[in-house]
């Protein structure tokens, strides 16, 4: 009987014994449920906490590191950027529209909870093959869910990525990131400053939706997972918009001590985490919580994950003004309890105490597991790819690979301009936004190649971070900070836990070298179906700073006779490449390697050359290699180029190898010698490939394709598969 109950709550027998020892008695049903959600992997990070500590989290720029609703970093002029990324994978697998929509809602709340105005949303998506109808349906609904929510609240969706591989067939990934801006001296923390502070819940009424969503997110998806649809929440972006404006107004008027959004594990998590951070106790009376459904039990009220709700702690004496502010925005605010000088979370129903547990037993003293890790021991082989018969044909074909083709079909469904700060929106490596009130620009991107990580988790972890940094450098921005979303299979399996540890080891090294601390993030385990885990997929959300927004570069060839320079060395590294996957149908081999010293030197040299004003374009090389980078540069202004491959490797390797630490640069003819000398002085391998101009991409002796033709293939590929 007990065993069955524990299983339903996601607790183990050992954990039950621990609970009994913390309480000095057996927990009642409500208390057991509180532990069930708070000790779930999703809320407690019980399998990841010890590993996450190995990531660099500090730096002079860090104003708020992990542990709050979001991280914050100094961007100068008295402002901070607030950032966070989070997964909504399981809800999106079961109910793609609401799952994705509420993923956006949740992450945006994390940002404005901190007193920051959200200025951008990014999404990192992973799906199975678009050849399959099921994937097309899931994908279409997820994109619609993201769009409908973000468009309504008026926060532009400016970037992200989409990647398709059969590995994600049953368990797609939907990661949403949000970036906000706040005055440094006006950040709000999710904590109370004293005992007997009033605790209010504001926003939507509490219903039966999303009960135990946190536990649902912490187990493997099964055949019967669609029965868990009630565990998926329903979003109301209009309510969110009202909450957003009301909360920012409260901050402006300095009426609150603390604000915490109600996300996973609802009121339970919000109350216990605020109490824990404040070093206080808290009393909640469930009878005072405004309800949407009738006859809800104390347990249902405490566990509901109804969306668009906030826990608000007004400053002493400001309670009335807080309520009036919310009323003006048409929002109900109800006093549901208070902080106490004690150390317990007490749940009342009127006068009856329904549950009483020490706050620290729910939060700090949640179990921690060091899982056993065991690598496969398999060494990935260097892959040799035979020269294709017709390289022009192969080039045209790969332009239509959903992983490389234009994502216009996706991002045109998102309002990416609202807010009038979007200098460069979706469609290029990173987005660039003006920081309102300053002359600075904030570049942002998400990245993480799960295929590389599957083939070599350590190297994949490094690449995820370095590729994100290269995207920012391409916008002329210096990398500043990271938020990460770590998507993996079950940590209880040694080879998955090994992947997790290895990826983190790689990311930690890269972040440390770049001086980009990880200030917030999220871990999503149990991304498995039928025992089959997804590719280990860290998604790195990175932001960077451009000192003068008016100095920003334009992506792509804008004029004729620009010198095209390849910076970095190309090796025979076709393993794990998009070429191998799309043309030959193989996701295998040794992925490209990274020499950290060379990588850092390349990024630094590009930044310096940019800051010296020598460059016209910067484009990093990633999936699809040199071929894709060249093609993309021709699309912005419909201008071609003539280049010559001067390396010793076969042309298809020079064009499609995904060797790291490379950039394409352009400069005026007059600056060519200066740029080449500058780079050679720094001992960076550099080749002058050719010139921009004409209306086709001509690679001497290899291929000659009109820009119009390339662009048509590239632009329409996704719409052709999905319908307009």
């Amino acid at each position, binding site marked *: 009987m007990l065993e069955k109950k524990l299983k339903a709550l996601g607790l183990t027998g050992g954990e039950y014994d621990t609970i009994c020892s913390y309480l000095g008695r057996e927990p009642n049903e409500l208390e057991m449920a509180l532990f069930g959600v708070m000790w779930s992997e999703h809320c407690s990070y019980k399998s990841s906490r010890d590993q996450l500590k190995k990531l660099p989290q500090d730096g002079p720029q860090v104003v708020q590191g992990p542990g709050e609703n979001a991280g914050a970093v100094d961007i100068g002029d008295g402002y901070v950027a607030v950032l966070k990324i989070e997964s909504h994978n399981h809800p999106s697998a079961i109910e793609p529209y609401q799952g994705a929509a509420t993923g956006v809602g949740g992450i945006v709340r994390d940002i404005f909870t901190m007193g920051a105005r959200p200025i951008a949303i990014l999404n990192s998506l992973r799906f199975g093959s678009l050849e399959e109808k099921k994937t097309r349906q899931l994908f279409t609904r997820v994109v619609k869910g993201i769009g409908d929510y973000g468009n*309504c609240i008026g926060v532009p969706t400016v970037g992200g990525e989409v990647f398709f591989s059969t590995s994600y067939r049953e368990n797609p990934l939907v990661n949403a990131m949000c970036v906000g801006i706040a005055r440094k001296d006006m950040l709000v923390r999710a904590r109370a400053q004293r005992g007997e502070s009033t605790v209010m819940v504001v926003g939507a009424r509490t219903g039966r939706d999303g009960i135990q969503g946190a536990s649902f997110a912490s187990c493997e998806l099964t055949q019967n997972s669609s029965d868990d649809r009630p565990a998926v929440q329903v979003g109301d972006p*209009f309510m969110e*918009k009202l909450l957003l404006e009301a909360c920012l107004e409260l901050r402006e008027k300095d009426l609150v001590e603390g604000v915490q959004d109600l996300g996973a594990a609802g009121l339970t998590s919000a109350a216990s985490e605020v109490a824990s951070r404040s070093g206080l106790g808290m009393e909640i009376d469930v009878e005072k919580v405004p309800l949407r459904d009738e006859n809800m039990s104390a347990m249902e009220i405490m566990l509901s994950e109804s969306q668009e709700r906030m826990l608000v702690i007004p400053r002493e004496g400001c309670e009335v003004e807080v309520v009036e502010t919310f009323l003006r*925005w048409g929002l109900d605010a109800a006093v549901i309890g208070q902080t106490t000088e004690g150390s317990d979370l007490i749940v009342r129903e009127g006068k009856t105490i329904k549950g009483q547990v020490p706050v620290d037993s729910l939060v700090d003293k949640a179990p921690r597991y060091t899982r056993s890790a065991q690598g496969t021991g398999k060494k990935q082989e260097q892959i040799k790819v035979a020269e294709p018969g017709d390289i022009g044909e192969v080039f045209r074909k790969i332009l239509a690979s959903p992983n490389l083709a234009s994502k216009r079909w996706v991002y045109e*469904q998102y*309002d990416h*301009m609202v807010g009038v700060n979007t200098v460069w929106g979706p469609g290029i490596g990173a987005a660039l936004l*003006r920081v309102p009130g300053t002359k600075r620009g904030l570049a942002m991107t998400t990245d993480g190649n799960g295929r590389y990580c599957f083939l070599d988790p350590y190297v994949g972890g490094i690449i995820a971070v370095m590729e994100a940094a290269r995207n920012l450098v391409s916008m002329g921005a210096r990398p500043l900070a990271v938020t990460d979303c770590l998507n993996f299979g079950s940590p209880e399996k040694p080879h998955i836990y090994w992947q997790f540890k290895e990826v983190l080891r790689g990311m930690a090294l890269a972040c440390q070298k770049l001086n980009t601390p990880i200030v917030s993030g999220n871990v999503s385990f149990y991304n498995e179906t039928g025992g089959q885990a997804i590719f280990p997929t860290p998604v790195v959300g990175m932001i960077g700073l451009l000192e003068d*927004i008016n100095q920003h570069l334009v992506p792509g060839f804008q004029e004729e006779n620009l010198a095209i320079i390849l910076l970095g060395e190309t090796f025979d590294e076709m393993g794990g490449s998009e070429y191998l996957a799309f043309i030959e149908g193989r996701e295998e081999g040794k992925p490209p390697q990274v020499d950290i010293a060379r990588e850092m030197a390349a990024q630094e040299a590009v930044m310096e050359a940019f800051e010296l004003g020598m460059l016209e374009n910067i484009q990093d090389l990633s999936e699809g290699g040199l071929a894709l980078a060249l093609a993309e540069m021709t699309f912005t202004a419909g201008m071609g180029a003539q280049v010559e491959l001067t390396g010793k490797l076969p042309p298809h390797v020079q064009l499609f190898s995904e060797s790291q630490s490379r950039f394409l640069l352009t400069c005026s003819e007059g600056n060519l010698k200066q740029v080449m000398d500058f780079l050679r002085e720094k001992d960076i391998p550099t080749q002058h490939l050719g010139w921009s101009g004409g209306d086709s991409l001509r690679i001497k002796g290899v291929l000659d394709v009109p820009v119009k033709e390339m662009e048509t293939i590239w632009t329409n590929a996704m719409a052709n598969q999905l319908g*307009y």
Partner: protein
Amino acid sequence: MKFGIVVFPGSNCDRDCFWATSNILGHPSEFIWHGDDRDLSSFDILILPGGFSYGDYLRPGAIAALSPLMERVRGFAGSGGLVLGICNGFHVLLEMGLLPGAMLPNRNLKFICRDVNIRVENASTPFTSKLAEGQVISLPIAHGLGNYYLDQQELKVLNREKRIVLRYCDEEGNIVDEANHNGSVENIAGVINPAGNVFGLMPHPERAMEALVGPQREDGRAFFASMLDVFKERGVLDAGKET
């Protein structure tokens, strides 16, 4: 010379409009909260901004149109005041009956956000006098319901009275189906009332004010410059201060 920007719950281009009129053009501008009992006589131009007033529940603009403030806006328009409705603000004007027609979902059933080409059909309105008839401009659109509908009879009237102000076109200014992003009847992007002082359009001129952001052109400025011209002529505005 003062701009009033009406804010409904769910408006989300209100701040962008304010940025355009106040920060960029440097004119006194003020938000008008829909619930405030305000006298509008101190304003010269009212803007109904884009967004999702009342979350687009029922129909876009339907609930906002019933806001008590809107009766004052109707009075303001009735006495000749300039009213500009952008995107969701255009919906509100349609729901109020200040402009004819209705909006259907875009014909591809998707939200569309992109820069589009627009041909100016009537350059003798207070909103377009700084443009030329037949001129092709670039403005962003961002909407899910912008498929403008009007029956044949009304369409004839609008055409005859030159009240179709903007049409979606290709780069050369041809009114073709491929350039009709949302499926609007006769590619219509903006219309004006018979008196010529209430103008609604789906594209966002307030997003095309600075080369730094938006479509790298500043075609949106012409609409504001045109409106300001009206007041310059009336002598309300110092002639040097229109842009």
